[in-house]
């Protein structure tokens, strides 16, 4: 019995009704809802555990009155910290634990959001290799080339909204794309509708995106959509005063302001 399984069994025996974790899937790891101590042996935790489980902890059907524990990766922790800063998490029913990075499989349980925040302070948010390559490619392009690149990329979008479903921070109960009086964004795939949808997604993520890359992974046609919000996250961090990957201490970027915000483009 490894330490993860021990932890899971002890949690389930002490009144936790559900553990959100990972089990072995066809391609690495997949999300797993562990309800009983017998199932705890199926739990795994490795580098393939990339799905952001924080998407589940906002589901009312999972987060009822019972205690739920999350086996959180670094990505999940970041999402939980951001969600907590947006008052989306009721702490009393949620137990968060992670496997420490030292490699001996030690389990660390967090006492609360504050401990998660301090755990994240020295964890730098890395830029994925795919995004680095894209960055290099795009930096050499003229404006017109960038435009045709993105129009081309977005024209492949099939509007499945997997990016919305996979993102732990896309939690509006009524999404702008479902608003139909007026119909802001074509709900069906169309070049402009796809473009507008992604622009909206990125704009709603300004300073909130935690760079987990769940959207890029979820995209069935392989559009590198996460690049946009990830790049915005890095580029605007100084301007808006946040550290990528960590929750903002006093309100999100677009719900706060500084009187001395840059004004060089307003004439």
């Amino acid at each position: 019995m490894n330490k993860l399984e021990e932890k899971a069994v002890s949690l389930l025996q002490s009144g936790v009704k559900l553990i959100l974790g990972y089990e072995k899937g066809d391609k690495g790891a997949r999300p797993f809802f562990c309800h009983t101590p017998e199932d705890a042996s199926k739990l795994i935790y490795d580098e393939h555990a990339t799905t952001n489980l924080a998407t589940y902890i906002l589901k009312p059907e999972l987060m009822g009155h019972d205690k739920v524990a999350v086996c959180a990766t670094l990505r999940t922790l970041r999402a939980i910290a951001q969600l907590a800063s947006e008052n989306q998490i009721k702490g009393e029913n949620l137990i968060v634990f992670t496997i420490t990075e030292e490699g001996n499989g030690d389990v660390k349980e967090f006492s609360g959001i504050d401990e998660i925040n301090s755990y994240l302070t020295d964890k730098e948010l890395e830029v994925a290799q795919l995004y680095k390559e894209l960055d290099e490619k795009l930096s050499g392009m003229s404006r017109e080339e960038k435009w045709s690149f993105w129009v081309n990329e977005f024209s492949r979008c099939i509007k499945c909204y997997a990016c919305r479903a996979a993102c732990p921070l896309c939690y509006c109960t009524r999404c702008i794309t479902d608003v139909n009086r007026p119909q802001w964004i074509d709900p069906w795939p169309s070049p402009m509708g796809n473009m507008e949808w992604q622009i909206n997604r990125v704009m709603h993520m300004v300073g909130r995106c935690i760079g987990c890359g769940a959207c890029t992974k979820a995209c069935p046609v392989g559009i590198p959509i996460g690049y946009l919000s990830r790049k915005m996250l890095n580029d605007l961090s100084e301007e808006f005063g946040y550290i990528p990957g960590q929750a903002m201490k006093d309100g999100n970027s677009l719900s706060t302001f500084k009187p001395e915000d840059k004004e060089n483009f307003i004439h």
Partner: protein
Amino acid sequence: MDNNESEFEPKIVAFVCNWCTYAGADLTGTSRIKYATNVKIVRFPCTGRIDFMLLLKAFANGADGIIVSGCHPNDCHYTSGNFHARRRWIAFRHLLEIIGVDVRRIRFSWVSAAEGAKWGDLVNETVANIRELGPYTEYTKVAQYVEKEDNNE
């Protein structure tokens, strides 16, 4: 007017705040200052209300240039609407630059209710700029893609 019919006349949409720029544009008129007629003014309660989607919709429906204008910082009728709007514009402009939308076509400005002459200059300058840049077919081409396909059938 003896303008050549084939000459390009830019279509400009101005999104302005009710309390400053709209009143400022009114003052331009009452002061009998002449300015380009290419602009269509859309009045909003505050710059904070000017959603970035409105700008995109203007481009998609054939606007060649956009003016966004409101109260100077600290003059907002609602105390902080323009500060919030400014943040949104910083982010929005940056995103448009990444995607490759022509940000030169969006002109941001602060025009107060007393700056009638500034409004006239702003419109004239924007029209001159857009006239140089030409029609924004790059954007409308993408927006009308589906329509065109239907017509071909």
